[in-house]
């Protein structure tokens, strides 16, 4: 293979998000007909690198050569230039829920329309039926994409991308939502296309898959490549994990305030997240305990947290409290822009809506003095920095917005705080402050549930880690675990 010219060559690629340097001068080479695994922990820069490759996120600087196209990156979008050379299957399916399977598969596909742009419906359905039978997927071409299960949706997304006939394919965590049977079908197709000269970049957290399907491995850490183009046979699991983790020992600020004597604050009994769940979830949260929910994207950890917080109805089972009435629960939702804050309102009003019943008198009128005092106290507790408590939250920095969301969650004096992605898109300083806040809450006897995609975050906070995969709890870590233990358990190899 060495005498061939590479199909993808990336030189000195950089990308920064705000103050975070996601890629620090990365080189990457892909040969034709190769399945190239890209490994690294969450936040190592894998997804950013492949997004820079496909143009989904334009790189800040560097040179990208894909097939015959050369791009000098300068931060502006170049996705259109390389559209016919590369396809990128993202972690979460990007399907049109209200369109049918056939329409989703052949959207923007010139193969099913005439020169005036009129789509031949019959042809589209025929080709879809053909495709579905090749993939051995038992769905109707006219089913709505929104009605399908997560695995099927993921397969559709992959089929759509593969159907474009491009020489380079990026598969970012393609198997996260797939069943074993679906995974087998995917691997067969990938191997078939590889034999026809298609190259793949394959990202996965399941290391055993790498040994099964990949030829070459590149490992990233902290926005840099630490091992480039090793042949997969020369590596073993232990070496890979060590390379992914690096030498640095993460300073663990973990504290354990768990109260084992009192009955649990909150208890999930036989929870089934949705209709696809096959097994009930039992989970309890004690006072002073920080429970971390970890697992792959789409594995159900967010849904489980929302069910615990009482903001989502489980398909079966119930959340109860052994102490009688359900405790007051404060929620920090996963996406603060979508459901965290009201941008046009000020800090005071945003915090107060978290506890309107607590701040108002019997007739429902807000006690202004109490409001000012309580919001002021919470703003101080969460370290919100704003020109005044009346400043619109949309004008604050990401870190301060997140602190406002925390203050709102604490407004009703909750017994349990459920925080999803508590520090997503937050700078390092604010991150530490929020960690300190969560530990302080636990030390005061609150039960804390956090959901995170970052192992670092889980390991500096959680006294107990529950790993959720495909809607069920597959593993649990308690007490004195290292981040390496956590990574190994999440990869399912420990």
């Amino acid at each position, binding site marked *: 293979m060495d005498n061939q010219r590479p199909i993808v060559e990336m030189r000195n690629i950089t990308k920064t998000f705000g103050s975070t340097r996601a890629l620090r001068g990365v080189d990457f080479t892909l040969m034709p007909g190769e399945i190239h695994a890209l490994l690294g922990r969450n936040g190592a820069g894998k997804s950013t690198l492949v997004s820079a490759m496909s143009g989904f996120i334009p790189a800040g600087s560097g040179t990208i050569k894909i097939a015959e196209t050369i791009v000098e990156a300068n931060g502006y979008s170049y996705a259109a230039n390389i559209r016919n050379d590369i396809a990128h299957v993202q972690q979460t399916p990007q399907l049109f829920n209200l369109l049918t399977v056939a329409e989703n598969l052949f959207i923007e596909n010139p193969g099913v329309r005439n020169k005036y742009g009129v789509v031949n419906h019959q042809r589209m359905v025929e080709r879809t039926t053909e495709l579905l039978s090749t993939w051995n997927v038992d769905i109707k071409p006219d089913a709505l994409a929104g009605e399908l299960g997560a695995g099927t949706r993921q397969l559709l997304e992959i089929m759509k991308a593969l159907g474009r006939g491009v020489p380079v394919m990026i598969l970012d965590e393609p198997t996260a939502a797939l069943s074993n049977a679906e995974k087998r079908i995917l691997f067969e197709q990938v191997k078939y296309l590889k034999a026809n000269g298609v190259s793949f970049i394959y990202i996965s957290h399941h290391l055993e898959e790498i040994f099964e399907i990949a030829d070459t491995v590149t490992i990233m850490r902290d926005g840099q490549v630490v091992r480039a183009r090793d042949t997969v046979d020369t590596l073993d699991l232990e070496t890979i994990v060590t390379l992914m983790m690096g030498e640095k020992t993460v300073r663990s600020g973990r504290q354990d305030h768990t109260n084992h004597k009192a009955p649990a604050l909150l208890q999930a009994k036989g929870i089934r997240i949705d209709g696809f769940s096959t097994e009930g979830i039992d989970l309890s949260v004690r006072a002073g305990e920080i429970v971390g929910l970890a697992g792959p994207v789409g594995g159900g950890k967010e849904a489980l947290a929302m069910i615990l917080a009482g*903001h989502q109805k489980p398909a079966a089972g119930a959340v109860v409290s052994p102490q009688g009435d359900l405790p007051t629960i404060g*929620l920090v*939702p996963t996406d603060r822009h*979508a*459901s*965290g*804050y*009201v*941008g*046009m*309102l000020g*800090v005071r*009003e*945003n915090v*107060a*809506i*978290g506890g*309107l*019943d607590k*701040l*108002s008198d019997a*007739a*429902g*009128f*807000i006690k*202004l003095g109490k409001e000012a005092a309580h919001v*002021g106290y919470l*703003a*101080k507790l969460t*370290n*919100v*920095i*704003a*020109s*005044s*408590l009346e*400043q*619109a939250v*949309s*004008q604050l920095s990401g870190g301060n917005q997140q602190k406002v969301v925390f203050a*709102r969650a604490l*407004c*009703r004096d909750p017994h349990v705080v459920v925080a999803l992605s508590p520090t997503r898109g937050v700078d390092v300083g604010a991150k530490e402050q929020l960690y300190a806040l969560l530990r302080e809450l636990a030390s005061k006897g609150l039960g804390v549930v956090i959901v995170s995609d970052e192992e670092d975050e889980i390991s500096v906070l959680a006294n107990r880690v529950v790993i959720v995969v495909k809607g069920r709890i597959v593993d649990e870590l308690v007490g004195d675990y290292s981040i390496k233990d956590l990574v190994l358990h999440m990869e399912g190899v420990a």
Partner: protein
Amino acid sequence: MSINQRSNTASAKQTAGQPRLSALGSAFVSQGFTMYPVLLLLVIVGAIVAPAFATTVNLINILEQVSVLGLTTIGLTFVVLIGRLDLSLEGIVGFAPMLAAVMLVPTTAGGIGIQLPPWMGLIVALGTAGLIGVFNGFMVVRVGLNPFISTLGLLVLLRGGVLIVSNGRSIYSPGKAFTYLGSEKLLGIPVSVLVFVVVAAVVGYVFQYHRYGRALYAIGGNEEAARAAGINVDRVIWSAFIFAGLLAGLAGILMTGRLDSAVTTQGQGIIFSAFAAAVIGGVSLGGGRGTIVGVVSGVLLIGVINNLLTLAQVPSFYVQASTGAVIIVAAVLTTLASRRSSGVRTRT
């Protein structure tokens, strides 16, 4: 918003100095005072060009004329604040008092023959209005219809309903107790004006200082955030439609009272003026933004302009067209003012 404008202290305290003036400016806009200078200007111009304008009689007359529009607009504001709308309010203004009127008068005057005591008319009208609000809330919250289409349908239905219950004829003199609010005076001031002022004050206070008002603004600003904060979003949306309906019903009672009759065309076109008044007053049709102070300014502005154009003996065709033009200009002004002051783009 630059970094140095933020205070560095951990607690959030107002930084003194240069931003104070601009803070005052944005408070002026966000509290809904934007249109009052324009209103003042119009009153001064009016007083100069039309001698009949700046008389007590005429000014009270304007207030009396706008009280119906005012109550409807305040009702509309409930639903617009949460990012919804309710076209059926216009239908309620016509239907609720008509239904009451036919229950009050004898069959010879067009009634249906049950001749309830006149005070019962108030209960029938408000009850009907409230029930229509319940229905609207049900359609939006439970059935999940877009309020535009569900309330449009109801508007057309109620228009027909007026003709059905009245047999296509207006009902005259429905009874003293029923028309009291719209026709009598108290201390020289029409009761309808007092009703409008009291309702505006109470609703304005609730919007600012009651948890219900806070919930309305939160839902309008970001419904999902309100839900995540633990607000019972569905209940608030539902109740907003009920309050809107009740206020439209009250507006209808005032109108019937003033005319001493329930007219079949009563209220026609009022929903457009109500939307215009709300937008002029700084209410964002996207939800989350707007005050009663602003709504009142919008209502007054429309009343003053109509009155001035009439006094200036502008032919009536031109009155309607120029009101439309003024609405557009005022809406542009309000939107620009709110964008400049807050930096937040609103969908008006």
